[in-house]
């Protein structure tokens, strides 16, 4: 310092200026360091960013899986994505918005990491890259973890999952078949799921329509099912179609999806779905279940037949049983619905052999699964044949209900009055006559298994199918002879004229046929109890069980 003291005032002046500049630089560096520390919440986990101009903040090459903000230069990037606050959480819903671009006004190059992806903002555009993992596919680490057990299946693998994530599948009917189909497709990771139904959830649906809960009774099936699917997989896009499928909207709805699942419960809708799939060139996964039996096939795929090729003429309406009439064991549509999900996954992912030109038949009572060979495409089919009459332009004009003589719903058609009105009494009138003490016979003509569910006191069960054979028994009843307590009746009672017979069934259909039969077979005093037991519950006794 002595030498400096002795130096010339010019040199001292120059030195002072240098010291000042040095101090300014130091404070600038310190400020920058502070800024750096404030911006980067340094993780204990290592960070490594791939790319030619990347800044390495740590030296380990492992991924890290926490959301962080880092200062970042630029990187090798492939996809553009949109960040949002929601993205900061692992597994957040925001991931579903991937591929949308949003500008960023700040213009600084900031990136954050989520689930091993690096989300980077460069020049107002957000981009995504994957750290130092070699990019052999488009599955991010979260997706890999989530679907790992499927990726491990050699026949399915990464390609299958990628295809599935890109696919859109439409499920028509959110009931017994649609419930398991939707749950499995949502869980398996399809890209987009469409749900079609116009019904609301009812109490008697719950035993088989397992996607709906007690709390959903009264709610629309589509809303309830969509919520359940989203709860399983928040990345899934769910489209809700509340109006149900009709000839007027079928082509439009079906055109938006890759694969169609027929999970409906009625004949005209099955023809409609088939036709719309054919004219729009979509494969159709068709399932049906009733009682203890189920059926499954894939129509209009790989030059296989369509529904009309197999069933060009609809069956007579009397041959079509519905779940509300014939019943269904809940697990049966459950199995078929799962198989429908399986076929849809196979079609969407390009895995295995879809069940085209073959029909699977399930018999739950004997646990037998049969697979049979079906005819091929019918070249004269009116929809998929060589000279089709139906097209996407004219399909909406086809009257499916008239074609099949049945309704586009499995709801019970209105009771038909077949008898002269004087042959019937209302439920209330019948009750009044009972209270007056009129001696009569009450015949319940339902099948024995239905009679076992609930029956009116003092009724006698003579199933409609056994009517002819049991006329002698009916005669005895009308004479006042109870076969089991015959001694109790004195002969003078037996000599009296026949007692009136009242006939009841579930909904008042078979009872009318019974009255018709008995009146023309020697029982003129026979009356129909109009509307059956359902009407009895409605008008006389609300506590009488309805099924």
């Amino acid at each position, binding site marked *: 310092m002595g030498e400096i003291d002795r130096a010339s005032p010019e040199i001292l002046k120059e030195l002072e200026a240098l010291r000042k500049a040095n101090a300014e630089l130091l404070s600038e560096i310190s400020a920058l360091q502070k800024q750096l520390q404030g911006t980067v919440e340094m993780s204990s986990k290592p960070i490594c960013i791939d790319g030619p101009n990347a800044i390495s903040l740590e030296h380990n090459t492992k991924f890290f899986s926490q959301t962080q903000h880092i200062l970042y230069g630029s990187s090798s990037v492939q996809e553009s994505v949109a960040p949002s606050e929601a993205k900061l959480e692992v597994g957040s819903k925001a991931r579903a918005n991937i591929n949308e671009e949003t500008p960023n006004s700040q213009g600084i190059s900031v990136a954050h990491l989520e689930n091993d992806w690096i989300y980077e903002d460069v020049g107002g555009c957000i981009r995504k890259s994957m750290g130092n993992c070699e990019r052999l596919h488009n599955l991010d680490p979260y997706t890999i973890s989530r679907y790992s057990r499927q990726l491990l299946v050699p026949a399915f693998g990464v390609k299958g999952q990628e295809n599935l994530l890109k696919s859109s599948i439409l499920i028509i*009917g959110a*009931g*017994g*078949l*649609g419930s398991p189909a939707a749950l499995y497709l949502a869980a398996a990771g399809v890209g987009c799921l469409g749900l079609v139904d116009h019904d609301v959830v009812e109490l008697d649906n719950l035993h088989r329509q397992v996607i709906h809960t007690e709390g959903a009774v009264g709610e629309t099936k589509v809303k309830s099912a969509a919520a359940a699917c989203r709860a399983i997989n928040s990345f899934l896009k769910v489209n809700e179609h509340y109006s149900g499928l009709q000839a007027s909207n079928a082509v439009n709805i079906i055109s938006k999806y890759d694969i169609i699942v027929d*999970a*409906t*419960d*009625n*004949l005209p809708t*099955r023809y409609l779905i088939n036709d719309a799939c054919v004219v729009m060139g979509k494969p159709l996964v068709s*399932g*049906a*279940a*009733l*009682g203890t*039996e*189920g*059926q499954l096939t894939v129509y209009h795929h790989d030059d296989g037949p369509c529904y009309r090729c*197999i*069933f*060009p*003429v*609809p*069956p*007579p309406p*009397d*041959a*079509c*049983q*519905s*779940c509300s009439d*014939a019943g*269904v064991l809940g697990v049966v*549509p459950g199995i078929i619905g799962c198989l429908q999900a399986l076929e849809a996954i196979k079609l969407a992912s390009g895995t295995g052999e879809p069940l085209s030109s073959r*029909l699977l*038949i399930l*018999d739950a009572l004997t646990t037998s699964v*049969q*697979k*049979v*060979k*079906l*005819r091929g495409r019918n070249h004269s089919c009116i929809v998929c044949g060589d000279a089709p009459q139906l097209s996407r332009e004219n399909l909406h004009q086809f009257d499916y209900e008239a074609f099949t003589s049945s309704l586009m719903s*499995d709801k019970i058609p209105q009771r038909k009055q077949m008898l002269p009105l004087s042959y019937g009494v209302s439920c209330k009138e019948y009750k009044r006559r009972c209270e007056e003490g009129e001696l009569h016979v009450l015949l319940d003509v339902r099948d024995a298994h239905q009679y076992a569910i609930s029956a009116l006191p003092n009724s006698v069960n003579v199933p409609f*199918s056994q009517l002819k054979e049991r006329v002698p028994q009916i005669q005895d009843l009308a004479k006042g002879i109870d076969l089991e307590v015959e001694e109790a009746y004195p002969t003078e009672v037996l000599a009296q004229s026949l007692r009136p017979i009242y006939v009841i069934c579930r909904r008042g259909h078979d009872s009318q046929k019974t009255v018709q039969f008995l009146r023309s077979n020697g029982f003129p005093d026979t009356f129909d109890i109009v509307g059956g037991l359902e009407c009895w519950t409605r008008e006389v006794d609300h506590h009488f069980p309805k099924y």
Partner: protein
Amino acid sequence: MQLTLEFKGGLELLFGSVKVHQIEVEPSDGKDKLKLQELLIWVRNHLLKERPEMFMKGNSVRPGVLVLINDCDWELLGQLDAVVDEKDTVVFISTLHGG
């Protein structure tokens, strides 16, 4: 000729609610094979219990019924002209619509 006949998809209701029937039937002209046309008539006359119109229409099965001979659609085998042999299985199945 011994055959196994099965009625499914609700058709069993027309056959006394019995799904599987082991039957013994002789081809009318003494041949060793039986045409489906002949078998259908035999079924109508011997097994069918009620509502024949729910099983047959004209001389064939009603619309909505599939006939499978040894797990194969009878359309591929000649329909009414298809033949069955000793110990064959013929399934009559009504298409289901429920869900």
